[in-house]
């Protein structure tokens, strides 16, 4: 069982504006992922794009993996247009998963951050309290599934077109209800992560963030994907992508 394998695309379907659900099937035995881990997916056929691209595991079951892919550049454009039957090279699962703590889990997803947190919500199931913020209604994916899975859910959008109007920071206080004995798990845009992290640090709340960085190998060998932490530069692909918010130097 190797973390490097070939996979066949089962389908690739739009689930929100500019976001595809990309479902693949291993052609050779592969390992099971944990929530928060990621895979490196081949995009180009030859050398442009050259590098594989990192994507969080969105959902996994027997021999199949799903990813949420938002088209933002060349590699994701190619992935978005691949169709059933195409074969790609895949490496994974990679990186550290979200630690499963005993405290009340509070899951804060901003936009595409849901890609990394969806499987964690499923793991915690009705124990999970979730804030899922997005720009607008069209950016929200799998609302029904999340609603029926999580114990508690606030949907928010910047423009109020779905759920409540505002961003996740507007609801975080209300949502936690003064309770500090929780563990926060968060993934989303950098600005949001920083705000959530600072909030939690200030309140002494345990908080795990999933970070992004340009990657070449995904394996820990190129030292390309580092972030500054209190323990020096650490690799997002190896020591991360999930870090304790208090270890990161936020700047």
């Amino acid at each position: 069982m190797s973390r490097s394998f070939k996979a066949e695309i089962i389908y690739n379907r739009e689930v929100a504006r500019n976001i595809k659900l990309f479902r693949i099937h291993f052609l050779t035995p592969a390992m099971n992922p944990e929530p928060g881990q990621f895979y490196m997916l081949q995009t180009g056929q030859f050398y442009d794009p050259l590098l594989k691209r990192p994507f969080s595991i969105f959902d996994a079951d027997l021999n199949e993996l799903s990813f949420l892919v938002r088209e933002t550049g060349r590699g994701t454009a190619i992935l978005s247009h691949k169709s059933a039957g195409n074969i790609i090279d895949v490496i994974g699962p990679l990186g550290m998963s979200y630690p499963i703590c005993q405290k009340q889990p509070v899951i804060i997803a901003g936009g595409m951050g849901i890609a990394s947190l969806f499987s964690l919500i499923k793991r915690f199931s009705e124990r999970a309290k979730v804030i899922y913020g997005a720009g607008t209604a069209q950016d929200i994916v799998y609302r029904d599934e999340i609603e029926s899975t999580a114990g508690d859910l606030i949907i928010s959008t910047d423009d109020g077109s779905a759920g409540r109007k505002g961003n996740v920071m507007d609801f975080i206080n209300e949502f936690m209800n003064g309770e500090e004995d929780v563990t926060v798990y968060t993934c989303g845009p950098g600005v949001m992560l920083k705000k959530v992290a600072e909030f939690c640090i200030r309140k002494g709340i345990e908080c795990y963030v999933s970070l992004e960085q340009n990657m070449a190998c995904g394996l820990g060998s190129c030292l390309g994907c580092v972030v500054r932490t209190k323990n020096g530069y650490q690799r997002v692909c190896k020591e991360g992508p999930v870090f304790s918010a208090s270890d990161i130097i936020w700047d």
Partner: protein
Amino acid sequence: MKLDVKIGKMQMKNPVMTASGTFGYGQEYAEFFDLSELGAINVKGISLNPMAGNPAPRICETPCGMINSIGLQNVGLEGFLSEKLPYLRNFRTNIVANVLGNTIDEYIEISERLDSEDIDAIELNVSCPNVKQGGISFGVDFLQLRKLLMAVRSVVKKKTLIVKLSPNVTDIRIFARTAEDEGADAVSMINTVMAMSINVKTRKSRIASMIGGLSGPAIRPVAVRMVWEVHNAVKIPIIGMGGIMTYEDALEFILAGATSVAVGTANFIDPISSLNIINGMREYMSINNVADIHDLIGGVNE
């Protein structure tokens, strides 16, 4: 079928090694294939003291290539010897220690120490474009290189000494000849090409340190040309690299004059690239009735 080659005193069971900085210290790859299959493993550049490296982002992709500016993040000489080398010695392959100093004295200190350790070759990185006070001036100024090599050669008595050449020069043959004249056992080439990429949305360089080193298939034609030039200029063996992704690419270097080849960026894209390259080479030789890899070295027809 003979695939084995010799670089200085280092006997390689096949001509394929990994390129420095692209294979960590081996650990990350051991789960993908048996590292004993490799001709040699070349480790991340070693400095006297541990180095933190450059700020992020450190890498970005470019057409058929990538720019990196890792800034020689490494565990330092002692860290290498105590934490990394013992693990690498689990494999029946050669270990090449890539060395970077800020001064001639640092190069001497590291090299002298490594000469009595359980490694097979010392590769002097005199061409890393990513460290400000670093070895770069040795790589683009052949008088400096001569001084450095005279000093280092006198302390490297037991091990094979390799000089890694920079492509960022007008005439790379001068540097290769300097290496040969000063007793280097081999040259390895090429290191990355100095490069820059700008994000027009943010109007910033895509890597934090403005300029970095370009590697990958994009630079292969430049590397092959330089290997061919150096092959026609010196007698010491050449370790060729730059954008090798497949066995055909590796053979291009060998036909151009390389005795050994190193696989770099390809390790990031497919962790078993180097193994595939070794197997592909073997198959090519068998199909084309090449009994000994030496029959291909420098064999490009003019």
